[in-house]
């Protein structure tokens, strides 16, 4: 026996009221009509949006630093932490003159998250040593084609002109750590003092 909820089938003769069907139909209609006057459970997404939890984990974002350089260095820690094996990446070496595009000498030339595989557990942002990947309060929309669910850098990297706020996802310890500007991780580069060492 697989469950404890199974019941033996009873073959009982139906009463007259049951055979008429009408009382049952009226009973059903009563339930239907009563719902017209109840509070709606659905909302008109995307015009209306529900209130999100502060720590809601939705679509990922690949952050840029203060001057707009990508923070991801393709270290692979998110991919190794990912329990669903949804993340893949290809690393490339930064060339001279690309210091404004990529923060470190290595960067991800391809970075893909398979949103069909992703379970939005947030282990990738826990693993990230560069504060590059964060989960945001944006919903991953459903699509008509499977391939559209594989998000590449075009969908993941935040637009330079429209930074995505992730401060709600940073713990107190991280915010404290970010105050230490002497660590290379937290250094704010002006355009003149870009690190151009390869």
């Amino acid at each position, binding site marked *: 026996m*697989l469950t404890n909820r199974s019941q033996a089938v009873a073959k009982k003769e139906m009463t007259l009221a049951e055979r008429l069907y009408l009382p049952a139909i009226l009973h059903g209609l009563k339930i239907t009509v009563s719902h017209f006057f109840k509070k709606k459970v659905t909302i008109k997404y995307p015009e209306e949006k529900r209130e999100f939890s502060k720590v809601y984990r939705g679509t990922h974002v690949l952050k840029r630093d203060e001057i707009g350089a990508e923070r991801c260095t393709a*270290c*692979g820690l998110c991919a*190794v932490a990912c329990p669903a094996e949804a993340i893949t990446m290809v690393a490339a*070496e930064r060339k001279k003159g690309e210091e404004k595009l990529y923060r*470190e000498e*290595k960067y991800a030339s391809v970075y893909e998250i398979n949103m069909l595989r992703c379970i939005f557990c947030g282990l990738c942002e826990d693993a990230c040593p560069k504060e590059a990947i964060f989960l945001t309060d944006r919903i991953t929309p459903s699509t008509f084609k499977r391939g559209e669910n594989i998000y590449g850098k075009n969908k993941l990297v935040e637009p330079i002109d429209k930074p995505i706020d992730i401060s709600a996802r940073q713990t107190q310890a991280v915010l404290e750590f970010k105050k230490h500007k*002497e660590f290379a991780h937290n250094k704010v580069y002006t355009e003149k003092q870009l690190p151009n*060492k*390869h």
Partner: protein
Amino acid sequence: MAKVTIDGHTIEVPTGTTILEAARMIGGPIVPPAMCYYSKLKTTGGYCRTCIVKVSKGSEKDPRPMPKPVASCRTTVMDGMEVQNITSPDLLEARAGVVEFLLLNHPLDCPICDQAGECHLQDLGYENGKSKTRYEFDRREFEPIEIGDKIKLHMKRCIHCFRCVKLAEQLTPERFQGMLNRGDHSEISTYIKHAIDNEFSGNMIDVCPVGALTDKTFRFKSRVWFVNPEDAHRNCSKCAGKARIWLKGEEVLRVTARKDKYGEAIDWICNECRFDKKKTSDWVIEKPTHIDRHSVISMNHYESLKDLKQDVDKQQKQLVNKKVNLGQGALNPNNSI
């Protein structure tokens, strides 16, 4: 023969054996870590100080303890000597200090470094170090140096272990590289950046305990935990041809020497095997390399189906013993998941 006791384990070793070698004969967690000592190379050791141990009894004849920690890779055993390694909290504290010094100028660019995942300094820092730095000054910066067209030297990651220098002295007929300057300014150099073109120069990548010397043919190709190490061999006229190939699918991403459990190369391999044989068809694959399951490289690395099954059975038994409430069907081996 001399009798030596290390952390309570007594062993009899030939006279002239170092404490480190004696500890390795015993094996297990009492073996001191070593960054510069390399048993396959002569006169290595004595630079990094990570292998320090406390000698609580000098010998049978002279039982006075040694006044300060000694480098176990350079100190030979005496009859009746008693040594403390992990049983001495003072020593572990001292070793943490050594690790802190080694990491003073280390850039900690592990997310970029190709050595990450198999780096001895990472292991050392993880096991013996402190999780925070107290160093507030700028770390040393160097431009990477090209040593030939296949090797890249990142001087900023170097911990001055001298292994590559000793290798150049001993494995290759002429001396090719050395240390320039002194103290905080010292740096490995090929002296006026002479290209090293020797058949066995690639082995300096293997002896480097950190990511200072890295393989340019593998540079940024993949992280080590996404590639699959296999023991393989080929007929080579220059070396034994016994190597470890790192596969990703059908592609050989890199070739290294086979290493023992202390991370030392078992056989030197030549540059042709290391840099030029990057096809699976060049190699005869023997078996998957044994990887310790605490290593990140062991991820998705299965050595034999039998072991895997034994592991699973063991874990299932543990689960049953713990009476984890998974429902009746979950632990039934007849139920396929």
